[in-house]
């Protein structure tokens, strides 16, 4: 596989392999919005008693994916802004799935595969799929060209694949078999890390006989786990008519749960890491789990910033968000930057972790650094050092696009292939002039879509 650029940021607070099972809470706060979804169509009544697995709300923009009640409880629709609150949560044993009689829009000809796909959608497993190139939710009844299954998360910090798979290898292989049954002859590319570990060799051993799985190994360098980067590395070019599906190990396990046990995805493994976390590890929780309970007593420094996702692409968890959303696969907590270091730029920097070799730390194996939210410098004009281009996994030139966007040359920015950006954030990270390149590229893509292609959509 041909991969370029990339860089590992090493932050302190890497989650250990330990998994802590969180106690059952009394109340769940299910956010109606997550990164991709907006569950605007609420389909339960105020005060209604919900059973586990029941759809609370749906996203009409995304094939009506359901927001699933992970436990039994009483629904409160107006108790918290932007959430459905589940009160008096009890652990009633889940009932197997009984499909309703009228199954909407299952295209004829898909047969049992169509039924299975419907089941995936209704049981919350479909949410783990994404289009490798655009990141959007693919059509559950569409036909992919190929499927990428990745077991690797490289951003600091997200759920670790080895933690997830260590005890559930059987479920994983069964999930892969189910996935294959959904397809016709399309290949499944399984992405494994290029490491020698017991688990990796066990996975290889188990999948040896599976002719329809082609295993690809990637070096453990961020952001090679990005699906768009992987798809391009595998030579799967973008074609809107023939999408490439992608999902993580989490998704495969959800498939297994939905199709083998006919049960909804009501448990969730997340990582909790970052410099402000005292004992970074993995947590077993469920969507809607109160963030307050997760963070209280586990954070060490004050004030801090909680990120839904990793330190490079994660979004800030707003104070208004009360519970885990269904898409979250890791919380990273960073200390807010406050102290102003005396003559900071002139320090030898044996404890700094830098892409450049301008600190004393480059003389040895650089340690993980206790990163904060500091910009660590003043904003300056671009000096064309070329670092952003070196780390870019897409092979574009962020410095060039920065200059083109500055002078509003949208057509030229498009010709410079701004659309290839995978938004990994490395360019902003390494920039010595502290230019917010990732933000500029995302905004630039939006502006180009609006101003140059406004009329083309659905045309």
């Amino acid at each position: 596989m041909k991969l370029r650029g990339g860089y590992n940021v090493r932050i302190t607070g890497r989650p250990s392999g330990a998994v802590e099972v969180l106690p059952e809470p009394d109340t769940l706060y299910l956010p109606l919005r997550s990164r991709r979804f907006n569950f605007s169509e609420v389909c339960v009544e105020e005060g209604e008693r919900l059973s586990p697995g029941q759809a609370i709300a749906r996203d009409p923009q995304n094939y009506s994916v359901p927001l699933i009640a992970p436990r039994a409880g009483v629904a409160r629709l107006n108790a918290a802004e932007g959430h459905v609150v589940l009160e008096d949560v009890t652990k009633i044993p889940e009932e197997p799935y009984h499909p309703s009689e009228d199954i909407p829009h299952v295209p004829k000809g898909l047969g049992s595969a169509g039924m299975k796909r419907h089941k995936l959608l209704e049981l919350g497993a479909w949410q783990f799929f994404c289009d490798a190139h655009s990141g959007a939710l693919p059509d559950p009844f569409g036909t992919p060209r190929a499927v990428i299954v990745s077991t690797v998360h490289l951003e600091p910090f997200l759920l670790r694949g080895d933690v997830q798979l260590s005890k559930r290898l059987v479920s994983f292989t069964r999930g892969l078999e189910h996935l294959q049954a959904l397809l016709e002859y399309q290949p499944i590319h399984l992405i494994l890390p290029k490491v020698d570990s017991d688990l990796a060799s066990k996975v290889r051993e188990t999948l040896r006989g599976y002719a329809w799985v082609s295993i690809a190994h990637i070096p453990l360098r961020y952001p090679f786990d990005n699906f768009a980067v992987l798809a391009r590395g595998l030579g799967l070019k973008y074609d809107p008519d023939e999408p490439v599906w992608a999902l993580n190990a989490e998704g495969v396990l959800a498939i297994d749960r939905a199709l083998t046990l006919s049960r909804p995805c009501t448990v969730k493994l997340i990582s909790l890491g970052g410099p402000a976390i005292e004992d970074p590890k993995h947590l077993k929780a469920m969507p809607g789990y109160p963030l307050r309970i997760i963070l209280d007593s586990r954070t060490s420094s004050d004030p801090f910033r909680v990120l839904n996702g990793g330190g490079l692409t994660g979004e800030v968890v707003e104070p208004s968000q009360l519970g885990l959303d269904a898409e979250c696969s890791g919380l990273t907590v960073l200390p807010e930057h406050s102290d102003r270091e005396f003559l900071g730029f002139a320090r030898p920097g044996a404890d700094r972790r830098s892409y450049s070799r301008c600190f004393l730390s480059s003389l040895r194996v650089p340690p993980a650094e206790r990163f904060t939210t500091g910009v660590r410098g003043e904003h300056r004009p671009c000096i064309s050092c070329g670092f952003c281009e070196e780390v870019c996994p897409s092979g574009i030139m962020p410095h060039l696009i920065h200059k083109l966007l500055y002078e509003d040359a949208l057509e030229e920015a498009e010709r410079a292939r701004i659309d290839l950006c995978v938004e990994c954030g490395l360019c902003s990270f390494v920039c010595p002039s502290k230019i917010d390149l990732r933000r500029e590229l995302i905004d630039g893509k939006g502006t180009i879509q609006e101003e140059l292609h406004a009329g083309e959509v659905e045309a």
Partner: protein
Amino acid sequence: MKLIRGVLDGARPLFEEGGALKLLKPVFEATDNFFFAPGSRTHHAPHIRDPLDLKRFMSMVIVGLVPCVVAAVYFFGLRMLAMIVVSYAAGGIVEVVFAVVRRKQINEGFLVTGLMFPLILPPGLPLWMVAVGVAFGVLVGKEIFGGTGRNLFNPALVGRCFLALAYPSKMAASWITPGGGLFGRLGEYVNVDAITSATPLSAAKNGVFASVGDLLWGNVLGSAGETCVIAIIAGGLFLVVTRIANWRTVVGVLGSFALLGFVLRYVAPGSFGPVGWHLLAGGLLFGAFFMATDPVTSPVTNGGKWAYAALIGVVTLLIRNLAGYDEGMMFAILLGNIAAPVLDELAIRYRLRRLGATR
């Protein structure tokens, strides 16, 4: 540290809106941020940032120049320190005036320009010329283009070029005989009207070659910072290793110079000097390591860098051997600066054509 913090905090109201020195706010901010790393926080993802900032970046260049400064002070005396002070003062004033007028922050770039400028001048040059040169260089070479990051030419070279054209006789006759012994000229302040003699390069035109040992040690006439090859290589390698200077530019300049030199010596024997000797003499090494590698004025693409470096090496060789000037490095780099945007454009077009097929 507490004292400085206290003074800065005490002075802050003077520079805020409504304060008496409101106009000089950029100066205050620059001082404040010099002593205390800024406390600003990220607003968007990525929420963490690399510790490298432009202050560190420019400090690395200054660290790389330290061996050359030490060598210059050793060989040419305390005059060098006076030149550096004058250069910083005059260049700094221009930078501050522009920052105040444009209401922008003061950039760190002039810290490098101000130190580099005296090092590429004849050590006996009158101090007022140093001031005029650096002011012209910063003003015309940088500020009118929009400041650091937007300049087309290396400001120090623009200043030197101006002096070379405006005061050719002074520029050609302000050499100082380098000191020797344990302390060199460390305790001396050599006055102007020093010694007019031939630099190794002008002597070479008459067939007199300085010994390689003298060139390495720097015990020859020449611009202040360019004589001591050992110091240049030590500082230059430091920059290459820390990736502040791009190795492609350095290798390209020296490689193309050497390659073409060998070929031409073979093709037209007699009219070209010995290549190995020429590599060590004059400003070639200093230019290759410190001037040509300036990221702002050199191309940003790798392809562009190779072409730019080759252009500089070739032009230097041709000027030195075929033209009336003894030394061609200054003109070669300025020519390279002119060509850099075009070379970049070509390299970018090539890159984009290949990128266009991606997806």
